[in-house]
């Protein structure tokens, strides 16, 4: 057995393989194109509803407005701190407890 160059072996093998008859049935099988076209159009998303399109945007806008209002009123909140003692004095429960002592 005389071994030959392996690249030549591969070349002879592929040359032989290229002579193999190719499948002659290359037309689409019956119903194939109908099925594929139906699947392709079914897979496409229909236009999103108005609610779906705007709800996320609305959440974003609402969040921004909330943050903006806190920022805008921050100085007012910090300039007039809530008087804890006043609240405590006017608290009816506290008054009741104090009166009971």
């Amino acid at each position, binding site marked *: *057995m*005389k*071994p*030959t160059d*392996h*690249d*030549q*072996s*591969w*070349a*002879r*093998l*592929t*040359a*032989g*393989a*290229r*002579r*193999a*008859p*190719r*499948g002659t049935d*290359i*037309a*689409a*099988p019956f119903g*194939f*194109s*109908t*099925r*594929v*076209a*139906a*699947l*392709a*159009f079914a*897979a496409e998303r229909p236009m999103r509803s108005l609610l779906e399109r705007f709800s996320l945007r609305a959440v974003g806008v609402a969040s921004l407005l909330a943050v903006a209002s806190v920022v805008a009123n921050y100085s007012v909140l910090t300039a007039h701190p809530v008087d804890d003692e006043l609240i405590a004095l006017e608290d009816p429960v506290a008054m009741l407890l104090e009166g009971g002592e």
Partner: protein
Amino acid sequence: MPDEPPFDVAGCLDRVRRRDQAAARELVDHLYPLVIRIVRSHLPRRVAEEDLAQDIFLKMFTRLEQYQGAVPFPHWVSRIAVTTCIDQLRAQKRRPEFRWADLSENEAEVLDAVMTNEKDVAANDAMASHELVHKLLDQLKPDDRMVLQLLDMEQKTIAEIGELTGWNTSLIKVRAFRARRKLRSMFLELQQKERT
């Protein structure tokens, strides 16, 4: 008898974009021979050719908006077909072992003949050669297999392979080199096994 007029791809695509199902069916019927030839050349084991062809067409319709007309439409579809086949081959993690014992009598004779003498394969052994080539290609990594299939079986040029796969010249050459080296070692191993 007058010749059939050429298929109006651009007009058909316009109709498909306007969601005309009849146009979509015409497009599939027109492109099926092209797609099925690619699928049959690169069909992974245990995958039905019709299923793979269907995946390719569905991808084509999904990406239709991306088609700008820079290349002819059949080239664009061929590329989708080739990359889908590569993805399928990559998904098959295990490759079956190649053994003499698994070859048919005819395949074993052809393999022995190409390894030991310098004669061409006989015409009536073409099918056995075809089977053998695919069994050997199945041993390679999917990307290497694709390059060798396109180079040696379909006799494409490096530039054509680049167009089909999107890989650059150096990458294709490296993959071809790696695939041929692996083939050489397989042939050597087979010869040694045959002797023992």
